[in-house]
């Protein structure tokens, strides 16, 4: 009985080319310091910098001006959060972006911060 020729990947494997090609095979960011809602802004509008891949340039252009969260960058790039973090790790290594980490994650939220959020939502 001859088996039909099987491919070594299937649907469950997901998009095998995209992520690895874009990140040079890396699946983990070089640093663990960016969170889903870490805010990112380009250090400079200058994208003429050696070592920048097209995706890096797209991110830098996105983040020139108002800061964007990692989640927003991933959504606009159409890439997973993990792949986006790898690319952002590169940009951090090159000091091409600045980041603002979310409020200290391990601690309970500060009461003044909660009050500011409450006032802001009431004003909507």
């Amino acid at each position, binding site marked *: 009985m001859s088996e039909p020729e099987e491919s070594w990947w299937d649907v*469950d*494997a*997901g998009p095998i080319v995209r992520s690895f090609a874009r990140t040079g095979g890396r699946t983990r960011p070089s640093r663990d310091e960016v*969170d*889903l*809602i*870490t*805010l990112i*802004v380009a*250090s*400079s*509008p*200058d994208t*003429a*910098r050696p070592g920048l891949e097209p995706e890096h340039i797209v991110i830098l252009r996105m983040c020139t001006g108002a*800061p964007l*969260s990692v*989640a*927003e960058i*991933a*959504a*606009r790039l159409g*890439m*997973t*959060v*993990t792949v986006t973090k790898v690319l952002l790790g590169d940009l*951090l290594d*090159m*000091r*091409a*972006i*600045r*980041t*603002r*980490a*979310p*409020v*200290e*994650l*391990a601690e*309970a*939220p500060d*009461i003044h*911060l*909660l*009050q*500011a*959020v*409450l*006032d*802001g*939502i*009431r004003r*909507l």
Partner: protein
Amino acid sequence: MEFAGFEPNPGSGDLPTAVKILIAGGFGAGKTTMVGAVSEISPLKTEETITATSEGVDNLSGVEEKNTTTVAMDFGRITISRDLVVYLFGTPGQNRFWFMWDELALGALGAIVLADTRRLEDSFPAVDYFEHRGTSFIVAVNRFHGTCDFNAEEVRYALDLDARVPVVMCDARSRESSKFALITLVEHTMTSQMSAIR
């Protein structure tokens, strides 16, 4: 162009602080609708690939099944001020694996569990998860079908909620109603916080 424009020591003093609030609940409970009702941007979709190791009933064989799944969630943004941005994440209802995305719940100000009274049992996993994690949450009963067969106390009883957890009626399509749910959540988080300090 030269590279002098890049700061040698990236600072972050002028960037706003970001916080997040989760909107959870079963499939079709109205999570994305609520995100859209209060967000200043059209809800965006973000994805994460999650690898879950599940032990089957035949785990005596020592073989674990590995599942890789893509979890997608919609989110929106509310800019409170120059210094403060709130992100609202609607968790995917169909996919049980979102619970593995720990980063989502980590550091969240709180969660709104949207309940659909026609499928109240769909809210159980989210309620269990936030109770277990100690995440501040409220239950919002979405009345978008016009009628609601249950009142807040009946929903509280059915979900076996702690007496302190607020239950509100809402219409996720309405900005005012969704705002009210968010306000109730933040007030609840503040109350829990203050009673913890005392």
